[in-house]
């Protein structure tokens, strides 16, 4: 989503309105309740801290921070937190750990040999396969590119800033890769895997710090470009 465009309903920096939980957003009427908005009697109220977004008759709030809620198909960077004889428990930054069954692990793993295959603390690139109604998820490492990450660094940004990191048609992430000469994989859970020379990694992490702190304000692409140029 372009940070300066009105396509996401937030408008320009001049008229972005920050709303706090409980703040009245006007009468409900025929308006559609979107994300981050609730009803109190005949009034619409904000239920999250964020920026008001009105697109047509839908009223929603773009939150300043979000927890990662896994969805099937999400590519995520996870950490192994524990294991049993035939499953691993993966921290994917969601309210619950995900489960990686032995049958969905890379290669052939014998029953009871999970620790030998991938020990606690291992970083992995995996994909969410299914999510149940209580948001518990199963992940898989059967797929192209899914593997253990034995090198590089992992940095974290709030998941709702993923769109800013990727940019319009991948422009921001391409800009980061070219300026730093690093390999970068963006996980949907807000974790990024970065691999390259130390100077390049440092540059990417400085850019991510700027995105974390100012990603909610317009003009992000320009600010990041200035940082990379300097």
């Amino acid at each position, binding site marked *: 989503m372009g940070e300066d465009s009105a396509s996401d309903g937030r408008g320009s920096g001049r008229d972005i309105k920050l709303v*706090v939980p409980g703040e009245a957003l006007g009468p409900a009427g025929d308006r559609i309740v979107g994300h981050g908005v609730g009803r109190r009697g005949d009034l619409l109220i904000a239920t999250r801290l964020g920026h008001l977004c009105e697109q047509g008759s839908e009223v929603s709030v773009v939150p300043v921070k979000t927890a990662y809620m896994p969805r099937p198909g999400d590519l995520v960077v996870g950490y192994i937190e524990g294991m049993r004889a035939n499953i691993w428990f993966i921290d994917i930054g969601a309210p619950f750990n995900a489960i990686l069954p032995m049958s969905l692990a890379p290669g052939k793993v014998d029953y009871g040999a999970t620790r030998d295959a991938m020990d606690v603390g291992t970083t992995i690139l995996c994909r969410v396969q299914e999510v149940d109604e209580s948001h518990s998820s199963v992940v898989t490492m059967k797929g192209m590119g899914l593997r253990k990450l034995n090198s590089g660094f992992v940095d974290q940004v709030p998941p709702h800033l993923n769109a800013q990191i990727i940019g319009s048609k991948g422009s921001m992430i391409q800009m980061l890769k070219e300026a730093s000469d690093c390999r970068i994989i963006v996980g949907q859970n807000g974790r990024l895997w970065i691999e390259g020379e130390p100077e390049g990694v440092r540059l990417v992490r400085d850019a991510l710090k700027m995105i974390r702190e100012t990603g909610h304000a317009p003009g992000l692409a320009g600010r990041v470009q200035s940082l990379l140029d300097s």
Partner: protein
Amino acid sequence: MHRALRGEFRVFLTVENTECVMKMGGYGDVQMIDEDGKRVDGRGPGDLRPIEIEVGVVPVADGSASIRWGANYAIATVYGPMEAHPRKISRQERAVLDVRYNMAPFSTTDRMRPGFNRRSREISKVTSDALESVVQLELYPRSKIRVEIEVLCAEAGTRCVGLTAASVALADAGIPMTDMVVSVASGKINGVVVCDLNKEEDNYGEADLPMGVLPNTGDLVFLQMDGDLSPEEFQQAWDYNVNAAQAVHEIMVAALADRYGGGE
């Protein structure tokens, strides 16, 4: 003021070129408000102590806020939603709020023994109950939201300070809520109902009424009381708390706007 003091003597305090004479005749005879309604710190009966709130003071937390309220200084942090550990505390249909209120050993003139005590446990529970009224816990079943409140300097009303800071920290963490809880304590000193007791008024006063209210609806989510108040005095203290909560709410909103910008 040492409780062991006896006898009568006069103490002059100069606050911004005004003088308030405090006449002490023992523990039960402390005069803390004069005939003109001026308190020992220069405030009127309905005035709040100075308040400053800063958001995002603990970068590693999902949400955080610091609050200076008079000489009180507290920091609240929020982590989560996360997996509920130990498993026995998790609930199938909603998240649980794990609130921990603690006073640092150096926060009071008499050293606080480190670690959890009965008072900390009580305040943790009432804070959790108040916040559960507004947090949309049903959106995160079987998970936990951890709230830590650390009081670094105490000067009366620390539970109110902690609860207010926790509300701001929860908003900063992006936790969905139907409103923000604001907490203020009024009380009675020398037969006069006043708002926002300071340390001396809390120690030597006749009643203390901390409340937690929702500023957008006026709903009550937390109420405790020490001492004696007549029905009329109770109503007056209630009104002071509700009105003061509106003023404190404006400061909370301004602190969040200062951090995230985006005014109209």
